[in-house]
């Protein structure tokens, strides 16, 4: 696009090379996902026949998915993760917006102090152990809230939202104030409807984060029933005994190679992200550029 030169033969060759390399990179991104899906639907008979997993199996089976969804473990974990993703993201957006909106008002006394206090937390933190002890002390241990409250506001997202609010023309809000609208009303009726793109972007950032939550789960939860999906997934991958992990008798799983079951669980974790991805990428570039402007 920017280059202005006549393309000689070597230039064209370079072009071809570039297109080829990029195509390979694109395929390299897709191929692992494809392979994982293939493994998840390959029955044992195929594996034995071919001495391994084929790239295009001749027969396939949904048994692995049936196994994981009828076990108690995976559906429970899925429910937990869906719950914390929806509830967590809603709270994230609520608190972040309530904090970002006033901070975007340059005339607000004390604004700079609060901003500095918040940005400071990006530079220095108490560390893992003190944070852990704090979560313990605030009574969140072994509850869903331990996966939501400690990460309630992401400073990066907060700053992006603040920048967005600052970019809205001041006249709109002033007009509503002149009409006698309160601060609450202005926020709700004027600013929020204008902020849908940023809400979508940050909602997706927060949401994907919740979906991938793992460390909160292993640090703060003892009750296996509360484990989010990623924790269950990791245990599934590294376990020597899938039947034990799923609490399902081995006899039920005899037609399936353990890898299929493991990969079926991986697929369950990936599919929602892929489903959301088209929406993600629509708002995403805008969101990133906003953040980059700040940075």
């Amino acid at each position: 696009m920017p280059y202005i030169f006549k393309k000689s033969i070597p230039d064209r060759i370079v072009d071809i090379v570039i297109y080829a390399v990029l195509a390979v990179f694109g395929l390299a991104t897709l191929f692992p996902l494809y392979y994982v899906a293939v493994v998840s639907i390959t029955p044992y008979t195929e594996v034995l026949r071919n001495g391994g997993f084929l790239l295009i199996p001749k027969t396939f089976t949904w048994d692995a998915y049936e196994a994981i969804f009828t076990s108690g473990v995976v559906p429970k974990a899925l429910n937990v993760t869906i719950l914390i993703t929806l509830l967590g993201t809603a709270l994230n957006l609520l608190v972040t917006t309530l904090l970002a909106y006033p901070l975007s008002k340059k005339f607000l006394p004390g604004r700079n102090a609060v901003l500095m206090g918040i940005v400071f937390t990006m530079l220095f933190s108490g560390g893992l152990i003190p944070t852990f002890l704090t979560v313990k002390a605030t009574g969140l241990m072994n509850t869903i809230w331990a996966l939501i409250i400690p990460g309630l506001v992401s400073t990066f997202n907060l700053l992006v939202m603040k920048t967005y609010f600052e970019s809205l023309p001041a006249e709109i809000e002033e007009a509503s104030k002149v009409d006698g609208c309160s601060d609450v009303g202005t926020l709700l009726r004027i600013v929020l409807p204008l902020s849908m793109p940023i809400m979508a972007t940050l909602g997706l950032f927060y949401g994907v984060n919740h979906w991938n939550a793992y460390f909160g789960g292993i640090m703060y939860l003892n009750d296996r029933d509360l484990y989010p999906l990623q924790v269950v997934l990791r245990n599934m991958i590294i376990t020597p005994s899938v039947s034990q992990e799923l609490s399902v008798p081995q006899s039920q799983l005899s037609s399936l190679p353990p890898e299929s079951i493991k990969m079926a669980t991986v697929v369950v974790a990936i599919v929602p992200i892929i489903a959301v991805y088209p929406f993600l990428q629509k708002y995403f570039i805008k969101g990133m550029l906003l953040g980059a402007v700040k940075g």
Partner: protein
Amino acid sequence: MAKGSARAALAGGGVPDVHKPGLRSKMWRYRWLYLFMIPGILYYLIYHYVPMFGLVVAFQDYNLMQGVTGSPWVGWDNFKAVFESPDFPQLMKNTVILSLYRLVFGMLPDLVLALMLNEIRVRWFKKTIQTLTYGPHFLSWIIVYGIMFSFFAPGSGLVTTFFRDMGWGNVDVLTNSELFRPMLVMTDIWKSTGYGAIIYLATLASINNEQYEAAAIDGAGRWRQLWHVTLPGVRDVFMLLVILRLGSILDAGFEQVYIFLNVRVYDVGDILDTWIFRRGIEEMNYSVPAAVGVFKSVIGFALVLGANRLAKRFGGSGIW
């Protein structure tokens, strides 16, 4: 605004009044805005600032029963234990080496991908490749580990079986100390390059077209234009990112390392954070890991400040 001009009128058009009564009435006027901020501020106070006070745990022989107020004070003993421990040099070495690997081998692919995408004129191809390559960023490391498992599992992995079928013997990627760091870097490249390229693409898009035109008039072909126009255009952003990453050199990507770590690769893979996590959270010995955490926080803070100063020296603007 209306309020400001009213006050200026009342004051006879002189210098605006900044005394207390004005401030208090201002704060009352904006009381809703202050109210809005309360949940967020509470959050930061409790979950970011209170833990900072928890740093004292590093100076105590912390006992869960006695808590912060009751545990005995041991001064610098925990720190002494850390620095004299035989593990510590290894942890530092692993942490720094891994960070540097990730810096060098992680940042360059991002830039190269952006440069290549920038050359593409076929818009649908560019968009497609872009969309595909920044996808993996949104997958969790556990999913990436699962993918690696499907390829490299000792028995049934795709690559493992392939090697065996070809008679090349057993390949042992996931538990091999020699391969561990490269493996971490390669998977990081797969996951992060597309996303990392975005900021360079944005920068590249903002380079003034006139510069290219001027270069073309001077007879510059593709490579000359690349060297004289494109690369200088991204130099500042690149340097800024390098410096920021240097500032966080003690964080070597804890999440990824933890997920891939296993006992057989501790000698190269155990970094400060994974050690803190294991000793502190899993084994519940809080004091010494807390001391390591303090060390990390303080050094990290100094590094980021230094990095920012360095960024300013390079003609950029730092982070603040």
